């Protein structure tokens, strides 16, 4: 089973890297970019086919390692 975990910064957490990318896009002439926030994507392949077990395990992985929930949110997509 293939899953994708998307980790993004929480609202209110400053993202200096996103700001720098935003500035660079502006410099390339993309003047209509209002804001850029940088995040991370993890593609995880899991053994087993049970959807709810997989989701539960992925949530544990996010809570324990993939995301720092002090500053980040996560979303899980399962194929």
């Amino acid at each position: 089973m293939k899953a994708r975990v998307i980790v993004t910064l929480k609202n209110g957490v400053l993202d200096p890297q996103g700001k720098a990318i935003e500035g660079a896009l502006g410099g390339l002439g993309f003047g209509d970019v209002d804001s850029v926030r940088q995040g991370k994507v993890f593609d995880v392949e899991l053994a087993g086919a049970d959807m709810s077990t997989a989701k539960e395990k992925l949530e544990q992985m996010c809570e324990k390692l993939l995301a720092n929930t002090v500053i980040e949110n996560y979303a899980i997509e399962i194929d």
Partner: protein
Amino acid sequence: MKTAVIVFPGSNRDHDMFHALELITGSRPQSVWHAESTLPDVDLVVVPGGFSYGDYLRSGAIAARSPILKDLVAKADNGVSVLGVCNGFQILTEAGLLPGALMRNAGLTFVCKEVLMETVNNATRFSSKFTRGQVWRCPVAHHDGNYFADDETLDRIEDNGQVVFRYADGTNPNGSLNDIAGITNEKGNVLGMMPHPENLVEALHGGLDGRLLFESLATQAA
């Protein structure tokens, strides 16, 4: 004072820390590999600086899930002193031993320079040899030292006196909230700080300002 230093793949300030601890306590610290399961019986455990696991995922994130961390958390719960410097501070926040998180520096660049520190709380085991408000020199060398915590956490640590060191006189090198350079846990036995006091402990370093932190700990352990 008996001490131990935890070494991770990618630690690089561990030897600076061995040297400073030996100089000040008179005895060689024990070196503990991260894959061990138990720490020796000591008064102080140090998590040193470096780039554990190459800062993969987030600085300190993977080291914070090392086998030795289980015993470090247990020792911290029992009141043993724990000091995390630079990457050590990142590891302690990732492990949940300290509140908040250390984000990419606001200026996006790695900073390697000297800053001024103000000791804002000298009623801790890490700072008793400083005077309150004492401003001292300390080197920094990091890319992710921008302290962040949500408003509620920030208010709580400020009210509890958990902020021990602040960057002074406009020398904040990383954009950290409230100029925070070093904080303790609620009980006051775990301290994390971005600057490197171990790198200013003898004349050849160009100053002795960092000694006071280790001497505070040695006094407390005596």
